[in-house]
């Protein structure tokens, strides 16, 4: 009985984390899946969201900026606005860059941001991080506190899904797909490509900020390392690619699936003798990398294919990434 209850509670944690990653993956899907913008700095937007919401909602502390004591929803909204503003700024100067270049630039910007979070101690408490961030439902008795958080995260994912599906089907979404497939044609048709791209970048950035804020409230503590590239950027990419980029359902499913694999494989490795447990932790990362390679080679479209509009009857569907000749 205890065992079953425990597994239920773990499932709640697992799905909460998976749901938060799903928000990040949905944000990346707007940028990459819909519009074809290679953002390798997911962790940067994530960090902005996490820090803004944390600073605005946590109690006063002599160690960092704070003491505004705003309610959590206000913090989360502010987080989205702040990340959207930063995305706008970055978008303004970087959006012209194509694929790899944008990737390197965003990765560099995210790393600079991490240095800022580490060094501007007056605001962020540097490497020591911000503690005692309020968590929704935390005063309800276990397990309802954790279940409440899960329901909140899933409600957000559901709302985002519905909105993004509508956006995808709207004229705006169709233009986005058109830009991604053939930028020149879209430009020739009189679309302001630059502006639309920035819009997608901002929207995606805002969702990443939302994901960051949710994470901060869920784990109640943040420090610059929560935005390190492997678990905050790379993992989100793996989720989207495996789930199927361009497909919102794929993004959500990929996030939950990959997070489950990432987290649950550890239950197996802890059964190994202790000398091996250390090596097994590395082996786990190795295997996740290998799984990604296999998916890339065997199922390049991910689990959920992108649902496309009939653009022209004659065109054979290209893979969703075919952009190398657009520059």
């Amino acid at each position, binding site marked *: 009985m205890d065992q079953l209850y425990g597994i239920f509670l773990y499932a709640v944690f697992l799905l909460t984390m998976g749901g938060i990653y799903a928000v990040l993956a949905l944000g990346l899907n707007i940028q990459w899946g819909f519009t074809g913008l290679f953002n390798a700095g997911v962790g940067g937007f994530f960090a902005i969201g996490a820090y803004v919401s944390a600073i605005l909602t946590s109690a006063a502390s002599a160690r960092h900026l704070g003491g505004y004591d705003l309610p959590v929803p206000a913090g989360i909204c502010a987080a989205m606005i702040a990340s959207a503003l930063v995305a706008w700024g970055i978008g303004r100067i970087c959006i012209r860059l194509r694929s790899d270049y944008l990737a390197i630039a965003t990765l560099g910007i995210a790393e600079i941001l991490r240095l800022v979070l580490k060094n501007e101690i007056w605001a962020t408490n540097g490497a020591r991080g911000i503690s005692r961030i309020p968590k929704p439902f935390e005063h309800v008795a276990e397990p309802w506190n954790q279940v409440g958080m899960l329901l909140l995260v899933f409600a957000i994912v559901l709302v985002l899904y519905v909105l993004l599906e509508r956006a995808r089907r709207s004229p705006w979404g169709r233009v986005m797909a058109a830009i991604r497939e053939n930028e020149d044609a879209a430009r020739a048709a009189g679309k302001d490509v630059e502006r639309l791209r920035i819009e997608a970048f901002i929207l995606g950035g805002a969702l990443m900020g939302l994901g960051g804020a949710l994470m901060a409230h869920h784990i109640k503590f943040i420090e610059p390392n929560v935005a390190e590239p492997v678990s905050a950027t790379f993992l989100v990419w793996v989720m989207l690619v495996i789930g199927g980029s361009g497909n919102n359902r794929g993004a959500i499913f990929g996030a939950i699936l990959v997070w489950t694999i990432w987290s649950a494989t*550890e239950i197996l490795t*802890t059964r190994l003798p202790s000398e091996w447990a250390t090596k097994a932790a590395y082996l786990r990362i190795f295997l996740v990398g290998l799984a990604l390679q296999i998916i890339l080679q065997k199922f390049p479209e991910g689990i959920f294919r992108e649902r496309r509009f009939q653009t022209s009857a004659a065109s054979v569907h290209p893979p969703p990434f075919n952009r190398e000749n657009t520059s």
Partner: protein
Amino acid sequence: MKRILTAAVTATMPLTMCLGGAGAMAADVKVGSAGGITGPIAELVVPIMAARNLAATHVNEQGGLLGGGTYQLVASDSQCDPKAAVDAGAKLVNVEQVVAVLGANCSGATNGMAQSVTIPAGVVMLSDSATAPSISELDDNDLVFRVAASDAYQGRSLAELAWANGYRALAVTYANDDYNAGLAGVFEAAFAELGGTITASQVHEPDKASYRSELSTLAGAGGEGLALFAYYGSSGITILRNSLENGLFGKFLGADGMMDNSVIEQIGADTLRGNIMLSQPASDTEDVSYQAFASAFEAAGHNATSPFVAHSYDVSFLMALAIEKAGAADRSMIPAALRKVANAPGTVIRPGEWEKARAAIAAGEDINYEGASGAIEFDKNGDVAGTYSLNGVGDDGTWTTM
């Protein structure tokens, strides 16, 4: 329901023991052993995990827990990242159903895991290396303990030791991580308060290939030596090497993050002898408790001077004592039991003395565990006060208390 069951088990236990069926009946006891197995301090965590396991081996070799049950540590990777730590904690507490958690190494990971998982679940967390003062401030319902003293103690203590050894002006550099940044802050304030001068203070990014230019700026400001707050692996050894090779600094002070034999191995005993002083929680190398731990740990093929290993042994052994004292693998009974087995008064127990401890607990006595890392006495926050010794390189080329 759970409580009734445990009560029933506890009630029947003496009976089964009398019948001699204890070995067969006693259940294994699972305790989580969370640590930054991967991540920025991975190299420090290898000996930390080994030390925790050594304590478990001692317990199991000398009769086990609660009448013959195996004391089982379940390793879990907190990656020194609060995100990962929350996930690791959720697995330990819910899937593995551990009675308590040891760890989770970095202050950030400990903080996240405690607030989000173990405190709501009512599970005790006993940390061996989280030193951030913010951990004392958590609303923890008496569920978070640590045997590593808050930086507030070590920083002050090192400043006093430096002053007593005749230093009046020092340059400071510290790695930008939770442990070292906090320590340096306290040290600087305390040293200035004593009347000393901090000629220059500079943060550095760990894991860079070299620190020559930073050090030359620091040396330019003068100072009798360099107070170096860093983990030996990520930047400590590099800074010592750069300073010595370039003749920038010749004298060094530091804390226990630098205390590892590989520092001597890499730089050379003769170069360092007389030129470096490191503070370490008073696991006074002459102390009986420390010796008991160190000889067992070295016999198992590990390095007993590695940072925090004495604490790691202590948390693991203390947890076993607390469970034995509580008389049942019951999460809610651990906090009170922890204080009873750690704090004076009581029968003095030292590392490795499990059989003696078991007998004392069976006789209804309280225990006063004198750990390898010092005489552990928990205060109301579940913290310990730190007392520190000063260490240098001895004639035999190892770290020795001065």
